[in-house]
């Protein structure tokens, strides 16, 4: 093969085309879409979490004075009791952390004396 023929032979092999040129704005569009999606999710989630109570409500102590004033201003007993929040108030008092039960106390008693 002479130089001309080898050149022609090599030229008969055509280089493969590259992948299509990407659109320059496409990345920005993707970023904008992701930001919009994050915003929508945020708007949906944040108000819901705000509505949730952050911890157990501490009930205000009811005094005779406050009960009397409630009864004086309310039109009925039921309304006064509802306003005071009796229906939702826990009746159980917290037990002191170091208190012992009677059984536990008695079990330690020395019966030999």
């Amino acid at each position, binding site marked *: 093969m002479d130089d001309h023929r*080898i050149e022609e032979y090599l030229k008969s*092999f055509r280089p493969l085309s*590259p992948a299509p*040129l990407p659109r320059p704005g496409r990345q920005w569009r993707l970023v904008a879409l992701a930001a919009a999606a994050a915003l929508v999710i945020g708007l949906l989630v944040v108000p819901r979490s705000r509505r949730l109570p952050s911890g157990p409500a501490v009930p205000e102590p009811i005094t005779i004075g406050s009960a009397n004033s409630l009864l004086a201003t309310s039109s009925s007993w039921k309304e006064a009791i509802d306003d005071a929040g009796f229906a939702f108030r826990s009746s159980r008092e917290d037990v002191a952390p170091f208190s012992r039960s009677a059984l536990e106390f008695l079990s330690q008693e020395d019966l030999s004396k």
Partner: protein
Amino acid sequence: MKAVRTTAHIRSTVESWYRQHGPALLLFGIALAGDRDRAQDAVHQIFLKLLEHSDLERIAAVRTYLFCALRNTILTGVRRQGRDLALEQADGPWFESPNRDYVEELSVRRALGGLPEDQREVTILHIWGGLTFAEAAEVLGINANTAAARYRYALAKLRDTLSAKKGVVASERPNG
């Protein structure tokens, strides 16, 4: 309205350059980077940069500019990553083989891969890039005579390699 027209004009100009020179640039990129994906990324990178240019008219010699930009992009990336070029990693075909003869395509690819890098560069620029020796020399930062000499050495090696391979291939086939 003028801005829209200008943007559309730049886009169409750059896309026409991409269609015209993209295949040879990709081949040159693979030969330089040793990796198809990196070559593809580099080709895209230079054309996406061109899309941001508003003064394409200032580019006098488009082909030379494109090959030069691609070479700088790839070599800068290679230097930054501190990696050696290894052409053996460049798997997959480089060419559309005439008559879909994949054995011949592989022979040409291996023959090109077997050339020293400086000879391979000038061969691709001249044969598939269509650059003159003066233009190839500008891309490679060498003298035009040096480019021509490298090309002659490369062509002699390719002729020897491919003649031998063609003989082997021909003898392996019962019908020629």
